[in-house]
């Protein structure tokens, strides 16, 4: 059989969300002129098709092979990030993409998955002959500092791009992985406290406009023409949807260009404007089902690497979805992260479907054992 039962349901839920995303992309770009905009939704359909192919491929690829290839994966990710950095330096500006043949690839999306794989392997090593994992008996250096060092390298490169949002997400993934992998509670708390006490230092390392964005989040009215404008418009878009929404293709905020990035980072606002509170309830439910399904797979799996990997992927989803929605609602700073499966963008769609494929395979291998 090509897919297990859980695999099929994962794919169906993901396709439902992606379909809603394509509807919203179609609606938000329909008013914009030019072939580029008119064809955006078609490109997204194409990406989703690629995504499904990736899902089928990865779900039939034994995830244990990732264990062997962890360091290779890590090295390739670093190389891609460095390449972005070098090309960016040549082009004298911000760059998050690598132009590969005919499409732009965003390595920071893949870096998140690579970090999850790396941490899952790191925390599931067993000493030879032992029955239990070594993580419980690890000291602070081995449990926290070494993985931190391995994570900081890609985070540094991502933040330098500059893509603050993805950097923060990778960091949060590390934090949650520390917790779920069974590192001593004292160490986890120590790590959090140390991180909090370092905040002023990080603040000083930020660029001026990044600071502005974070400040604007606290009070959108201090910059009504810049980042604050986006937050105000996004809130208006969501709120004006009301209970039942304005109906598909009738959202004025997103279509009349009041809302910037209405088909990528702010697609949630676009969606809620047209489908209202009930639409958002459906969307939340679908995302919840997806993550719930992943967590179930994690709890069913007895292989510790598989369990941690599944957990990590679920956390990655939950963190990124929450940050994006919070940003749309004005609860979090505008940091530029896409909403998985909804936002337009090939890299994020591909990475999402590949991650879901890994989840499906973890469950499949379990039934084989």
């Amino acid at each position, binding site marked *: 059989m090509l897919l297990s039962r859980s695999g099929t349901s994962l794919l169906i839920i993901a396709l439902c969300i992606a379909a809603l995303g394509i509807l919203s992309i179609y609606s938000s770009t329909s008013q914009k002129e030019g072939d580029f905009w008119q064809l955006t939704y078609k490109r997204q359909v194409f990406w989703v098709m690629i995504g499904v192919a990736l899902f089928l491929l990865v779900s039939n690829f034994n995830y244990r092979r990732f264990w062997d290839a962890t360091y290779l994966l890590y090295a390739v990710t670093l190389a891609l990030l460095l390449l972005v950095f070098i090309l960016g330096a040549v082009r004298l500006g911000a760059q998050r993409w690598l132009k590969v043949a005919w499409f732009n690839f965003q390595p920071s999306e893949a870096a998140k998955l690579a970090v999850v794989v790396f941490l899952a392997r790191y925390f599931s090593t067993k000493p030879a002959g032992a029955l239990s994992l070594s993580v419980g008996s690890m000291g602070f250096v081995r449990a926290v500092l070494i993985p931190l060092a391995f994570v900081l390298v890609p985070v540094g490169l991502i933040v330098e791009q500059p893509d603050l949002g993805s950097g923060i997400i990778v960091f949060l993934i590390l934090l949650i992985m520390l917790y779920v992998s069974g590192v001593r509670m004292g160490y986890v708390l120590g790590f959090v406290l140390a991180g909090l006490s370092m905040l002023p230092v990080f603040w000083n390392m930020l660029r001026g406009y990044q600071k502005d964005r974070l400040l604007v989040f606290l009070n959108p009215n201090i910059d009504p023409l810049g980042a604050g404008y986006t937050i105000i418009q996004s809130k208006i878009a969501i709120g004006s949807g009301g209970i039942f929404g304005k109906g598909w293709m009738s959202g004025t905020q997103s279509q009349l260009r009041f809302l910037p990035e209405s088909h990528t980072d702010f697609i949630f606002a676009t969606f809620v404007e047209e489908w209202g509170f009930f639409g958002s309830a459906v969307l939340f439910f679908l995302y919840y089902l997806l993550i719930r399904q992943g*967590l179930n797979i994690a709890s069913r799996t007895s292989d510790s690497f598989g369990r941690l990997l599944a957990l990590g992927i679920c956390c990655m989803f939950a963190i990124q979805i929450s940050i994006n929605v919070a940003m749309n609602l004005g609860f979090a700073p505008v940091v530029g992260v896409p909403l998985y499966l909804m936002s337009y963008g090939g890299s994020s769609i591909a990475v999402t479907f590949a991650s879901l494929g890994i989840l499906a395979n973890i469950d499949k291998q379990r039934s084989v054992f």
Partner: protein
Amino acid sequence: MRLKITAVAITAVFFLLFAGVLNLTCIQGKRLKYLSEKNCVRLMPQQGSRGKILDRNGEVIAGSRLTYDAMLLPQDKNETERLLTRVAAILGESSGSLRKAFQERFVSSSVPVAIAANIDVKKAIALEELKDELPGIMIQPHPLRDYPYGKLACHVLGYLSEIDRWRLTKLGDYGYKTKDIVGFGGVEEKYDYYLRQEEGGLSFEVDHRGRFVRVLGFRPPQDGKDVQLTLDLRVQRIVEENLDGRTGSIVVMDPYDGQVIAMANSPGFNPEAFVYRSSQRALSGIMNNPEAPLVNRAISSTYPPASVFKIVVASAGLENKKVNFTTTFPCQGGAQIGNRRFACWDVHRPQDVFHALVNSCDVFFYRTGLLLGPEAIHDYALKFGFSKPTGIELPYEAGGFVPHPLKRKLYQFKKWFDGDTANFSIGQGDLLVTPLQVTRAMAVFANGGKLVSPYIISSISGQRSPEGRRKTAAISLKEDNREHIRLALREVVASPTGTGIALAGAGIAVAGKTGTAQVTRGQPHAWFAGFFPFAKPKFVICVFLENGTSGHFAAILARQIIEKMALEGLV
């Protein structure tokens, strides 16, 4: 256990966000829906003023001044049409041209459109008084660049214009946007980041007729930082008045620490032409002028230095002991080198290094150059700071070129001949330098053997620019050699046979060196580089005239400037 807690935490976060959506859609939904349906949010950008550029005494070279723009809030078509007709009547313009301006500058229905820029104060007041009747009209103060002295120091300042594509991709990350006004050339470009003001603005709610209801948010605009230069406007003015009408460049510098006191180029341009882009003809005149009035020749153009370069060759010869104070070479109006005859501009008979400098005898330097070899001259030229930019805080500085047999072999696949050495020894051939490089090479003899780094920024918003960047490197010249050349430079002006005789009668003792650079096309270029007063130099001056015929004319111009400076008590 931890897995369960994680699952619960994720569920909790989702519920929290869901509650957020509930709050916005159901509780605040009505008000937000109203705002969205009426498109009732308006944005009114407000500009701060760009930082001033001051001279060393705090006089404003480029400031800013308030003008008024008439803005129109976009409304439905009939209403807009009615407003345009009314405004056109008050401004005395045709409503057609206003309509065109409106259509051209329309961004989105939430942003007011500037339909008439820079309107008269009286008309602005007249429009403001009609506010009750015409709620869609707003008068917006708008600071514009102001040049109290017109084109004075234009090349040092640069000009302002709308950002171009190249700069936008480069600077987009630093908050630059399309349609921003940024500096091009000069201090305006190099220090744009500091000078640049920050846009602020107001977002407010309006009712269905476009009348103001309440402020939603405000961000105060911020003024740019002031940049103070080392220029002395009094000297700058004298220099520009004297240079006017010719093609060339003049630099006046403090010999001890490299402060640029004056930097002028001719032809110049009036930066005001870029502020009011109204006169397109004047603009394209500046852009397409073959005389290149936008180019800061003092740092961006390179020329052969000709005889001025002899101070370098003389230093090299004495330091490398190829010649001493008593070595003489006979000059019969030329010398046979290889199978070519190299002429001297006069017949000087036997010359030692001192008199060869005074009379600018080419034969002496052909011989010295051949004894030294091109590599040694190359090395000394580098010691005097040629071949690389001086590092002054202005954009587009050229480095110039110092030839070397190896470079020629590598890049041109050609052999180096003795004739090339001879040309090199008198500052001709492939050698190319900027007037600013010549100025600082001359300063070495005025300040006791130090190569200074010229600079032009003295402080930014009251804070002195860091001194660490201003390197002064001692050139290893023996004191008696340096002194010997220094005295010769005085004799260039004082001796009746000296080439700088034009300066002899100036009230102040000047020392220096002239140069006449042969060029392939047109009259030779004219150089004079010198320092004054001789006993305790306060200024180094370099006068360069493109196709100025002879160094003599550059010396005359230098004399006029020095006399005027003395007259005004500046020396």
